[in-house]
């Protein structure tokens, strides 16, 4: 439990990440112009997840935090997947969709 301080992240790193985020946004918008059926939504969600990862690990300094922060995030995501996944055991298998 040391009193550690983060090294400042260079300005360039943040700006690079920002450029990446803007490009990824462009990709999402671009893909959405074409109809690939169900693929569209999964591409959109994957790109959004990638963008979130960049924001979480770099902008939010998660990269520099201890393991505890990462385990906490993982626990939250697992619980989230359970909440969503188990709700779908109902909705997907209804005889009449809601």
């Amino acid at each position, binding site marked *: 439990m040391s009193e550690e301080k983060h090294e400042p992240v260079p300005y360039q790193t943040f700006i690079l990440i920002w450029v990446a985020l803007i490009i990824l946004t462009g990709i999402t918008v671009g893909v959405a112009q074409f109809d690939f059926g169900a693929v569209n939504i999964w591409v959109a969600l994957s790109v959004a997840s990638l963008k979130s990862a960049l924001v979480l690990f770099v902008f939010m300094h998660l990269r520099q935090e201890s393991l505890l922060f990462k385990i906490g995030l993982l626990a939250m995501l697992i619980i989230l997947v359970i*909440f969503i996944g188990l709700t779908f055991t109902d909705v997907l298998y209804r005889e009449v969709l809601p």
Partner: protein
Amino acid sequence: MTKTPLTNSGFYSESPRSGVLGWLLSTDHKRIGMMYLGCITTMFIVAAVLGLAMRLQLFTPGQHIMTAQTYNATFTVHGIIMIFLFIIPSIPAAFGNLLLPIQIGARDVFFPKLNLLSWYLYISGAILAILAIFTGTGAPDTGWTFYVPFSTQTSTNVSLAAMAAFMLGFSSILTGINFVTTIHRLRAEGMGWGRLPLFVWTLYATAWIQVLATPMLGITLVLVMLERFFGAGLFDVASGGDPILFQHLFWIYSHPAVYIMILPAMGVISEIIPTFSRKPLFGYWAMAISSLAIAFAGSLVWAHHMYASGMSDFAILVFSLLTFIVAIPSAIKIFNWISTLYKGSIQLGPPMLYALAFILQFAIGGLGGLALGAAAADIHLHDTTFVVGHFHYTMFGGTGFAFFAALHYWLPKFTGRMYNHKIAFIAWGLLFVGFNVTYMAMQAVGIQGMPRRYYDYLPEFQTLNMVATLGSWVLAAGLIMMFANLLKGMLNGKLIGMNPWGGATLEWQVPSPPPMLNFGKEDPVVTRGPYDYKGVKADEF
């Protein structure tokens, strides 16, 4: 021994502010804990009176002391107060605040100001809940579950009650954040994870549930309010919504919430049993891990409340199967308590009696839970008084009795005075008998088919309902005797030393009542486990 007033010692006498403000603006965890304890006990008594009134109405068939509408409002308010204002905060907020920092060798919680804010949110929620009863268009009549579509259509004061529950949820979240951070960051030197008292482990598991599940209640209640104010219709089929999804979102929180209610109670029992058996807790790590396992498994099973809601058969199958998983860590706990008792040098002090009653009653409640978790049996038992009986066996016979056990175990620590043990024994006997008669009769009449939430019933249910009501009177007598005895003990009981029971956790190594900042100038260094009773003796008192 001289009789000094309570307010002249320990954390009662040291404060930067004097008088009432010294309490209302205090960030000291013990003062906040005592304020919670006072409010929570008051709320319990209010809701218990409502419960007794309902039992009185059900003494014989027909309308006696309340109309159907009054009865609906009564069970709703009884539920809202008992769940959101008593059970959820009872052990974590009151005893968690009082004990958690001391038990890990800290001087306060990590965010003391946030802690005070939690208390104010609790009080605001309580005031709103009371306003919801007495103002506007009448007390809410939806049941504490706020099920749509009724909750979005009834003319009663549901919005205000939902707002109250929302604020109480926020209070609960902040307490959870505070406790997780405290346990991670403020353990004293030598207080490794293997030396945490089980009470702290259960509070830790509870706090994670509070953080990860409570927001779901928040958003659900907000949506109900939006639906009432703007006609949003997110749960309305005509607007493309689905009322069953309300039940999903509601139970995604409210099922884990029953583990918010029961886990700290299990922690209390895990403290009391070893102390009164003079033996280390059997299976420390199994107990610690099973607390986390219950917290996790508790998030997998919410839809077992919804077998009769019209959700898919596949989901019923999945949730019925998953529900049985919870039995495993719960059984680990029961077996380990009993193994702790085995060959122990058992002393039947008042806290121990409540703890033993907890084990029996929680086991009965748990077994009833298996019947309800099995989809086939549940279709028959759903919405009968069997469910009410089961719920009270776990929540009142479980958490309620653990709360009483905690009062008898720790209240002397925080007031420096002991209550009368003989009266405590008699009160316990009345509570034990009254409780079991009331709720066993309720379970029995439920199996015969009596529906819950009805103010009237068919004549063939009369005998068991009379038995239940008679039991509730014994229960009430026990409650009055217990609270009177505790209050009298608080005000002018015998003074006690540091360690009246011979406990080995850190709170028994500080004065009673503990001083401000808990420990002297030196930070404590922990060198022994929480259940290492070698050389620990109880004080004479």
